[in-house]
């Protein structure tokens, strides 16, 4: 795992290496300075030698300036390295997630991915900074101090050589104990994040049903879970400090006891004893620092694992080797296609079953069917948003799995039923379809999608800023912007998944007319509830519970297909539908 984590240091290698180097230099100065200080007392002041004091003082100031310089440099490099490292981690994760299939995303859930990319990265970043700064400083200070103790009295240094390993074992034990608790904490964090996310995006429902207190209760539950688990984890970690102190105090008392006997026995001098005690404190200080870092690392370990999980996840839909890089035309062929959303379902429950279709380039296909008849599922298989469970789909005569995914999706434009607009201007949203499109092109497609009119009515026109999810335009406006966005792609296949439901029939008809006249060579697949939206299609597919119930023109289906006939008659005869067809007027009067 460490190797993997280290691999994201990348361009910050220089800073990462320079940090500990300057830390070491800084520590060297920190060791030198007390020695100089000791000289000032022992020689200068004892002898009343002002000149010596001044000399040593000057030397001390130079050392302090050096120490300051090293300290500042190490601090700078550490900041750069750690912030950069965090950046690389986030980048790696986000880029990876963009390549995920929906199966991958579902595995983690959106809210968990968000926490992983922010909170977890921050934890790892803090630990990283600690490691390159303090994990170097602590041991080096300790080693210097130990060496000094050894040079004074080997016997007394033995105390440390027993104490430090004992301490190490205890700390390690604490870490092992705390780790699973921290893991639980982060899982609860995901849940907390999810509750907030769902609450925020469903706030209208929450308010409409006056479920504020219910939501509060829900939040309290998960908040308390975070609290309990965090408390448990931190309580274990709280042993660190006291254990450290206990060890060092024991050492000091032992040194005092044995040291006194050594001095009395003539093996040591009083001054040496007080030096040893000073070094003991230094060892304590470095151990304290280490314990602090240790806590960070324990916490970061769980976070690091969660990050690695994300970057290690293999996208379930990915390019084949030597993929096909050109889509010849917009023909589509389904061969015995069956599909189910997850493998866990029982074998007999397919969302789509045994679909066979043959669509020629340039045809207009209508799809009609009841709620839950898998219309959306069917079309989502074409740009490979999901992979078929059985059978195969060919676009332009080539199996969709053989294309480079980008090439395939470039050729297939899809207006989703659940339209999503992003925060940004209308023009920015439109340019999703074609980054290079100029204003003229934007207006042209918007005219075709019947969106130009209302956009121009906004005070800022194409530069009108949309909120997240496009909540400041109405449903029908949103749909037309989405259609324009898709048309800007100039696709070989254009799929409209019930994307004119909020648009009035007249406009709907105008959009279809534009399709017919302006993009005749594009294969158009239109899913609709309104018969009028699909009536003039070359072929209409009637779906029922994941199976094809009938294919044909409107006329043919009226004769052969019971479902179509029923839908058609219910919408036309009673004049129930928005009255697009002529003749309705007569019936009604």
């Amino acid at each position, binding site marked *: 795992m460490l190797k993997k984590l280290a691999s994201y240091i990348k361009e910050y290698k220089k800073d990462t290496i320079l940090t500990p180097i300057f830390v070491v230099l800084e520590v060297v100065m920190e060791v030198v300075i007390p020695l100089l*200080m000791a000289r000032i007392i022992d020689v200068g*002041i*004892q002898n*009343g030698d002002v000149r010596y004091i001044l000399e040593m003082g000057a030397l001390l100031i130079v050392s*302090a300036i050096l*120490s300051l310089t090293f300290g500042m440099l*190490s*601090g700078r490099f550490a900041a750069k390295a750690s*912030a950069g490292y965090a*950046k690389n981690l*986030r*980048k790696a994760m986000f880029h990876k*997630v*963009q390549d995920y299939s929906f199966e991958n*995303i*579902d595995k983690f859930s*959106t809210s968990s991915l*968000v926490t992983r990319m922010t909170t977890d990265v*921050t934890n790892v970043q803090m630990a990283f900074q600690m490691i390159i700064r303090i994990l170097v400083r602590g041991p080096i200070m300790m080693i210097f101090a130990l060496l000094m103790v050894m040079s004074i009295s080997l016997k007394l240094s033995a105390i440390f050589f027993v104490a430090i390993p004992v301490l190490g074992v205890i700390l390690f034990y604490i870490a092992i104990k705390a780790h699973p608790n921290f893991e639980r904490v982060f899982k609860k964090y995901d849940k907390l*994040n999810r509750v*907030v996310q*769902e609450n*925020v995006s469903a706030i209208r429902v*929450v308010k*409409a049903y*006056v479920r504020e207190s219910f939501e509060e209760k829900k939040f309290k539950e998960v*908040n308390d879970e*975070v*609290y309990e688990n*965090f408390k448990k984890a931190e309580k274990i970690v*709280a*042993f660190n400090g006291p254990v450290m*102190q206990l060890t060092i*105090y024991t050492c000091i*008392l032992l040194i*005092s006891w044995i040291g*006194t*006997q050594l001095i009395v026995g003539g093996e040591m001098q*009083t001054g040496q004893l007080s030096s040893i005690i000073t070094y003991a404190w230094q060892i304590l200080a470095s151990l304290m620092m280490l314990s602090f870092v240790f806590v960070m690392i324990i916490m970061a370990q769980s976070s690091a694992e969660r990050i690695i999980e994300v970057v290690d996840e293999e996208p379930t839909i990915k390019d084949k080797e030597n993929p096909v890089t050109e889509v010849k035309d917009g023909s589509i062929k389904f061969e015995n296609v069956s599909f189910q959303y997850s493998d866990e*379902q029982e074998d007999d429950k397919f969302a789509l079953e045994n679909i066979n279709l043959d669509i020629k380039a340039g045809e207009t296909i209508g799809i009609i069917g009841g*709620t839950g008849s898998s*219309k959306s599922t069917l079309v989502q298989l074409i*740009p490979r*948003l999901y992979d078929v469970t059985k059978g195969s789909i060919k676009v332009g005569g080539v199996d969709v799995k053989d294309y480079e995914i980008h090439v395939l*999706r470039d050729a297939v434009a*899809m207006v989703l039923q659940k339209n999503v607009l992003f*925060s940004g201007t209308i023009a920015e949203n439109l340019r*999703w379809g074609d980054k290079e499109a100029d204003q003229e092109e934007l207006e042209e497609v918007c005219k075709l999608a019947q969106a130009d009119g209302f956009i121009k009515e906004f005070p800022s026109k194409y530069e009108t800023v949309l*909120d997240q999810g496009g909540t400041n335009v109405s*449903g029908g406006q949103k749909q037309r912007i989405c259609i324009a966005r898709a048309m800007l*792609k100039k696709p070989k296949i254009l799929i409209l998944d019930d994307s004119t439901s*909020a*648009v*009035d*029939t*007249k406009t709907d008809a105008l959009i279809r007319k534009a399709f017919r006249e302006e993009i005749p060579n594009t294969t158009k697949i239109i899913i609709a509830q309104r018969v009028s939206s699909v009536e003039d299609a070359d072929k209409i597919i009637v779906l029922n519970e994941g199976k094809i119930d009938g294919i044909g023109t409107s006329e043919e289906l009226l004769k052969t297909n019971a479902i179509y006939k*029923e*839908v058609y008659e219910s919408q036309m005869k009673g004049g129930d539908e*928005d*009255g697009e067809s002529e003749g309705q007027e007569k019936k009604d009067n």
Partner: protein
Amino acid sequence: MEKVKGKKRKTIKRLLKYVTENYKLQLVVVLVSIIISALVGVLGTQFIKYLIDDFITPLLGSQSPDYSRLLNVIMMMAVIYLVGVVCTFTYNRLMVNISQGVLNKIRTQMFNHMQKLPIRYFDSRTHGDIMSTYTNDVDTLRQMLSQSIPQVFSACVSMVAVLFAMLATNIYLTLVVLAMVILMVFVSRYLGGNSSRFFVKQQEDIGKVNGYIEEMMEGQKVVKVFNYEEDSKARFDDLNEQLCDSMTKANMYANILMPCIMNIGNLGYVLVAVIGGILSVNGILTIGSIAAFLQYVKAFTNPLSQVSQQMNSIIMALAGAERIFDLIDQEEEVDEGYVTLVNAKMENGKIVESEERTGMWAWKHPHKDGRITYTRLRGQVEFENVQFGYEPKKRILHDITLTAKEGQKVSFVGATGAGKTTITNLINRFYDIQDGKIRYDRINIQKIKKDDLRRSLGMVLQDTSLFTGTIRDNIRYGKLDATDEEVEAAAKLSNADKFIKHLPHGYDTMITGNGEGLSQGQRQLLSIARAALNNPPVLILDEATSSIDTRTEKIVQEGMDKLMKGRTVFVIAHRLSTIKNSDLIMVLDHGRIIERGNHKELIAQKGTYYGLYTGAIEID
């Protein structure tokens, strides 16, 4: 600049209040423990001097040294140390309780407050940015509360103790040390100020990154369909780069702080040594006291540099706290209503309040003179010259006047953007009108308590919101204490039962990620079921069936008509089939009602509705 500092001080005060208010007793124990633990530490440094002067020196040269007295002292010291360790343990443990408790409280307060914020608040922020406050910003407080504050306090105690020792030794030298301290304060103010500016920016940038990630994840299907992965990565990289930049700067200033403080300390040491040396040569000071004083200088500056090490997390926490308090300080939805909704029954021809759900509702109207009157809920809604705009200057609705009588089905027709949804959002007071009056059963809706107003209005929106949980839980959202039978009955009524039964685990199928596995139509059926279970006196259907096929819609509609018989229903729909049987149809255009009447009347008028119906007129 002064203003910023004042704000920071306020933020600190407010944060500390959480601790002092809820953990008074524990805090006292913590403070005492820290003081003892710090004093034990200071005492430890003095112990060695005592040891040498009082024990080792007298024992030197004695032939048969008697160590028993030394052993006693060491045992005594052991006890003192042990007390110190116990105190350290105590305050560490208690601080975990306190800091986690405070975090828990702050999160709860944030969430509960957020529930009371107006819809506008949510319109104007990305969801991820809001989420970031709960995790990233609250997280910054953790380290500060559990580690930094105790450490800083402990350092202060040690410093005060040492300061007294210094003063006892020599005042002039102490002044030199204090001058150094002032220099340190200045330096740390400068660096801390810079650092804090960038930490504030860092937390903002984290919010932005969080928001972007969340938005891209929500719209992942669109990203894929448009091959937008690379662009989305590029935009993310930009935001990420910005974050990295503010993070680097913030951390840099914070990291530089410690070496600065430490070396100013070193400088002080040299000054004291030089001045002390000169003084001693002139015989003003003894050599021993200078040596001791220099030890004090070290003991004084060590905790100082410890404090400066903690500055980092303190400054960051303050930046996080500002964002937290910003959320907590957002103005709540105004609710001056006092008329409440109660279950009622008739007794002797009079309406009286009832404990149980009677199926009859009444408005409980307390008057100034203490009288309470009850008005039966009929569901009559009147608009009188209502004016409204989301932004004060941009009117969306002009002069809307309408009356929906009890039991009527009232529909709104009009082009997209004509203001249909806006009207319904005014009835339930998601937004407040700018001018005019809305009356509900002849009561001005401003007088009705918001919760009760909304409780009386069921609402089904086009954009369905589902929660993680089972299908059953999601329907039950409409009535929390509904039995399984009631849930299933509601599902049957809304025709959702059919597809639910086909799901792998039926009603117990888990919905995750806002129900991605369900089709839009199925999701709408679920939210209609939710409303049916809620069984409200008045119902608003805002494009509630737009993704449901017409055959199913018909069945759903018959069910809902039966359920809502005799009650008022507002319907917004594009499909005229959905609203044809309405009692009253309003045709809206650019925020004005241009036609009204029932289907027959409107057809006879041969106006816009007629044009729409026959397809001769385009609404836009």
